[in-house]
């Protein structure tokens, strides 16, 4: 135990650096994925036939492929097509595409759950399509969207570990490097697991607090 504590103290900068990397990967892909997913969800519900088909194909392909395959494909494929992506960008790209597909389905479900009368009433008072979307539908969708969105955030933090496979120095890869140096395998994997647990627990708690704030009173 003493040995572990000394080693962990020595490695504190590396671990914190890895954690920061994990957090920025997750935050970036959640932000970009949410923007993409909102567009996909709106396209799935209100788009014309061609747009609906494209959005459906995109969502099905991304949701039918394992994240690790997306990460590896985003890492290896761009370079042969003449595009040079750093591992970090390739990883964030893969996670964003994955996240966008899941959020797209969530937004679709939330939009479809809103009673028809809402958009009819909004149209009746003369709002344009974007006005209806922005002022009537999306604010209502937000409420049912929040719990699955929080879940997706947790999933993205977990999925960020897959970037260790393509050499992005996030928490898991840093942990593996530390283990390679001191062979305290169990201790450092447990430490990494605990850090992920704390991060995800914090996200869940924050999500619950947010849900209470936007709940009907």
């Amino acid at each position, binding site marked *: 135990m003493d040995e572990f504590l000394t080693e962990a103290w020595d490695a504190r900068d590396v671990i914190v650096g890895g954690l920061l990397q994990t957090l920025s990967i997750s935050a970036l892909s959640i932000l970009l994925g949410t923007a993409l997913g909102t567009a996909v969800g709106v396209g799935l519900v209100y788009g014309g036939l061609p747009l609906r088909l494209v959005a459906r194909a995109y969502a099905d392909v991304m949701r039918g492929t394992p*994240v690790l395959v997306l990460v590896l494909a985003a890492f*290896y494929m761009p*370079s*042969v097509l*003449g595009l040079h992506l750093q591992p970090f960008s390739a990883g964030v790209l893969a996670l964003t595409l994955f996240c966008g597909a899941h959020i797209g389905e969530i937004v679709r479900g939330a939009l479809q759950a809103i009673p028809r009368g809402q958009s009819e009433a909004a149209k009746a008072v003369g709002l344009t399509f974007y006005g209806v979307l922005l002022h009537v539908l999306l604010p209502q969708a937000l409420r049912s969207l929040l719990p699955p969105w929080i879940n997706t955030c947790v999933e993205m933090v977990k999925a960020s570990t897959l970037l260790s496979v393509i050499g992005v120095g996030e928490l898991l890869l840093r942990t593996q490097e530390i283990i390679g140096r001191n062979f305290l395998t169990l201790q450092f*994997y447990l430490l990494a697991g605990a850090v*992920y*647990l704390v991060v995800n627990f914090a996200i869940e708690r924050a999500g619950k607090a947010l849900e209470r704030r936007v709940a009907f009173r």
Partner: protein
Amino acid sequence: MGYTLNFAVVWTNLPRLLGGLLLGLELAVASLAIGTLIGVAGGFLSVGPSRAGRLLASFYVAVVRNTPILVIVLMLYFALPDLGVRLDKEPSFVTALSLYAGAYLTEVFRAGLVSVPPGLSEAGKAIGLTRLGIAVHVVGPVMLRNVLPALGSTFISLFKDTSIAAAIAVPELTFQARRINVESFRVVEAWTVASALYIATCFAIAAALRGLERRFPKF
């Protein structure tokens, strides 16, 4: 650009890819089976009368669901030998995925149990069944039918999670695709075919499940 598609290498390696796909399915089925046992036990515990049991179940679910599957897989494969437990790659991966599945399935079965109307178990009690008899003959079958859709989508995500076994060199589909990628540099072909195989399998499983759900109509 200057990249011309050439699927020849992928076609000659197709048996390997399909073998990898089959291995992935086997890993997923094994993990689903063990995970279901864990999940049923956890589900009954979490709605049961024992406070310790409920705490244990919710602790297990919270810990496992908030830990990345890759961390669990690596921990079991690389760290368990330190404790004197040495498992081969496949059994080690199945153990990890089963533990992971068990946590999600505990939630699934808990929801399934809650959805069974209390009148049914009261009726079971009225005709003189024991508590075990009620669980096995009355509540169990109704719950199973209720959780069938969730069980199916868990199976699909488990199948996708078997790709993670590539990280400990289990020769499943992702591992084989990466091998083609590295050996032949047919990068685009390897990944599009692997991805297409995953998608097709997911769709086939989903279609089979819809058939199954039709055969056992809801109560």
